[in-house]
């Protein structure tokens, strides 16, 4: 029989069981959800897309590992969050950028934005978007000038001198040239991803597929993406530019400029979005309003990246303002208590 006197018992606090999901499985799900868009990028732009993404991922891992090593902090690369950042950053960069350049973005994203604030869960701006913003600020020409045209075949793996470039749909829309836009890209092209743009943002369809996977896996909830996309849809339907048809302009708007990528993968980033469902709705609407505002009035055609980063900054305020109603206290009493 068992020797009960010599059991090695650990008396930790309850609960004694935990759910199967952990940070790593969640990040793995996000990676899986991005695969369709990555494969599409390879199909459209060639192997350069894969290599650029791989370089970015490795860069992020090395920077995270190295920083924590130098600072003598416990290693965290196992949680896969650096991999997610690496892929996301590649997704928002032009495929024809030089490989070394993305490492600069990786460094900024991982070291400056994430680790200097304490690592996962502590940064208040989405690292991938901040990395992109840093690249745009430093290398404006490469980052927002020439976009490889997926309709003109693959981008060479080495050397990018003779890349055929095309204007992105947003550039047409910015200038109000709807005729030019519709002749260049059909709505179907936009939806499937036969358009110019950054590496992982072009196929609205495949990004939606990935987003639905994340919702199904309960990694994200629908609140942020639905609020975000719906806000952009309503505004662009109501106020089309360049005398375009309402529905047409709306469709072009929501299928372009990485809105799907932003709504499903960037605005839902745990660390930089509100923790309550109501807060997430507010956050999504805010992102939508700012995106349209920037696209309409900004000096720059693309609005998703900056709108999410701006909203990242007010997350703390949203979390302060939106609290769950206290259990056992009826609404009116809650209000009275607040008024006191």
């Amino acid at each position, binding site marked *: 029989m068992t020797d009960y006197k010599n059991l090695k018992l650990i008396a930790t606090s309850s609960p004694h069981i*935990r759910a199967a999901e952990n940070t790593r499985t969640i990040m793995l799900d996000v990676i899986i959800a991005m695969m369709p868009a990555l494969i599409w990028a390879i199909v459209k732009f060639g192997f350069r897309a894969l290599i650029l993404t791989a370089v970015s991922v490795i860069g992020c891992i090395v920077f995270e590992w190295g920083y924590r090593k130098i600072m003598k902090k416990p290693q965290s690369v196992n949680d896969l969050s650096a991999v997610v950042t690496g892929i996301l950053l590649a997704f928002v960069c032009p495929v024809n950028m030089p490989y070394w350049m993305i490492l600069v973005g990786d460094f900024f994203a991982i070291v400056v934005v994430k680790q200097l604030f304490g690592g996962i869960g502590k940064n208040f701006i989405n690292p991938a978007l901040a990395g992109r913003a840093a690249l745009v600020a430093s290398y404006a020409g490469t980052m927002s000038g020439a976009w490889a045209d997926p309709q003109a075949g693959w981008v060479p793996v080495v050397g990018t001198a003779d890349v055929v470039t095309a204007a992105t749909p947003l550039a047409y829309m910015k200038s109000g040239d709807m005729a030019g836009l519709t002749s260049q890209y059909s709505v179907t092209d936009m939806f499937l991803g036969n358009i110019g743009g950054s590496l992982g943002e072009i196929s609205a369809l495949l990004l939606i597929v990935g987003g639905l996977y994340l919702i199904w896996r309960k990694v994200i909830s629908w609140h942020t993406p639905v609020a975000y996309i719906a806000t952009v849809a309503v505004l662009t339907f109501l106020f089309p530019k360049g005398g375009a048809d309402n529905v047409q302009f709306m469709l072009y708007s929501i299928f372009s400029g990485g809105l799907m990528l932003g709504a499903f993968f960037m605005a839902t980033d*745990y660390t930089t979005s509100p923790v309550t469902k109501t807060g997430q709705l507010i956050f999504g609407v805010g992102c939508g309003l700012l995106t349209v505002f920037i696209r309409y009035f900004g000096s720059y055609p693309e609005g998703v990246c900056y709108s999410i980063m701006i909203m990242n900054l007010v997350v703390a305020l949203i979390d302060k303002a939106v609290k769950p109603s206290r259990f*056992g206290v009826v609404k009116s009493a809650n209000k009275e208590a607040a008024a006191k």
Partner: protein
Amino acid sequence: MAQAFFGGVHPHDMKAATNEKAIEQLAPPAVVVIPMSMHFGAPCTPLVKAGDHVKVGQKIGEFHGLGAPIHASVSGTVKAVEPRPYSMGGNIMSVVIDNDFQDEVSEEVKAPADPNALSVEEMVEIVKNAGIVGMGGATFPTHVKITSGIGKVSTVIINGAECEPYITGDHRTMLERPEEIIGGAKFLAKMFGVDKVVIGVEDNKQNGIDAMNKVIAEQKAPVVVEPLRCRYPQGGEKQLCQAITGRQVPPGGLPADIGCAVFNINTTCAIYRALTTGMPVVRKIVTVSGSGVVEPKNLECPIGTPVTNLLDACGGLKDGTFKLIAGGPMMGMAQYTADIPVAKGTGAILAFCENEEKTVENPQCIRCGKCVSVCPMHLEPLFMYQYASKGMVEELNDAHIMDCMECGACSYICPARMHLTHMFKTGKQLVKDKAAADRAAAEAKKKAEEAKEAAAK
């Protein structure tokens, strides 16, 4: 279907290991160790000393203030009255009885002549003398709950949710002893003067629901069984009241504040037994399960039976067992030693040898918000954790930490494996200490002022 409560989690219920196993009677133990504190309230004073002869059902511990008496669960000789380890941590004065295996019943145990002719006062008196407490684990004295609830309570609820994984004692009771449950429910209806008692049962126990419904139909009993959604913590008192009445217990309040009183299945059976046979609480049904147990079982044994007897009856523990829990996996207490007895609130003994807890070395909150969406008390665990770890008492109060019922749902779901619930136990203590210190300071100040005034006179 009943209404829902907000939040909650769906742990794998692990009940298949024991839910088809009938309740077995454990071979009588040679020794029982009966702790003098098995209820919410002050410990009892032992009424016996070493060398005394005791019989089953004889009162051996008297309570003071809030509490319930304690009775001998076997007949035999008192070997010692001394502090022994028990499941709530530390040592407690206990009466150790050598079993003489005669099962002599004490003269104190007298069945009422006609249970149905008893007045409410007489019934409450019997419940009190029978030492009945909340057998689900809360161990609040039942007679106090009844007396303080009479007149206020319009909905009497019997808690058959049994939402903690692994535990199947209540489920087996529904299948094997439905008439005791329904009989007890009828007495409760009479005591509270209500025309209907609701039994809430999670809908994963359909055969238990059917068994009780059959008895209800046969006896035309004023009882209804309400199937509830299967979700932890459905069996929390506040969640159960919410699911059945749609009302929420106010902060710091009791179910009685919204006209509810909740009794556990086994408490109800104990009431039935006390009122029909006069037998106080001397036996307990315990689920013995978990990855470390060779052959999981439901066992009925005398109160005070050493846990090792139960484990032996289940084939012992597997090698590498590192955790022994008294109670369920979500709220039960991990034990330092197997040398503890079964108490009135011990519904389960679990042993784990696999990494059920899935601990990690450096938990880092990733702000996923999952803890917020599962907290049945509408709290924001991630923020409470920050405040508690920094000792920010005021912020903890503002975050309503005292509403936390330590259900463990947030820790369970947390993908970063933060020790949230544990931190809230500490945090609540901080808040209480601060409040006590404030009170003491205020009193000291008042005293000093009074002294000054007196001196001035």
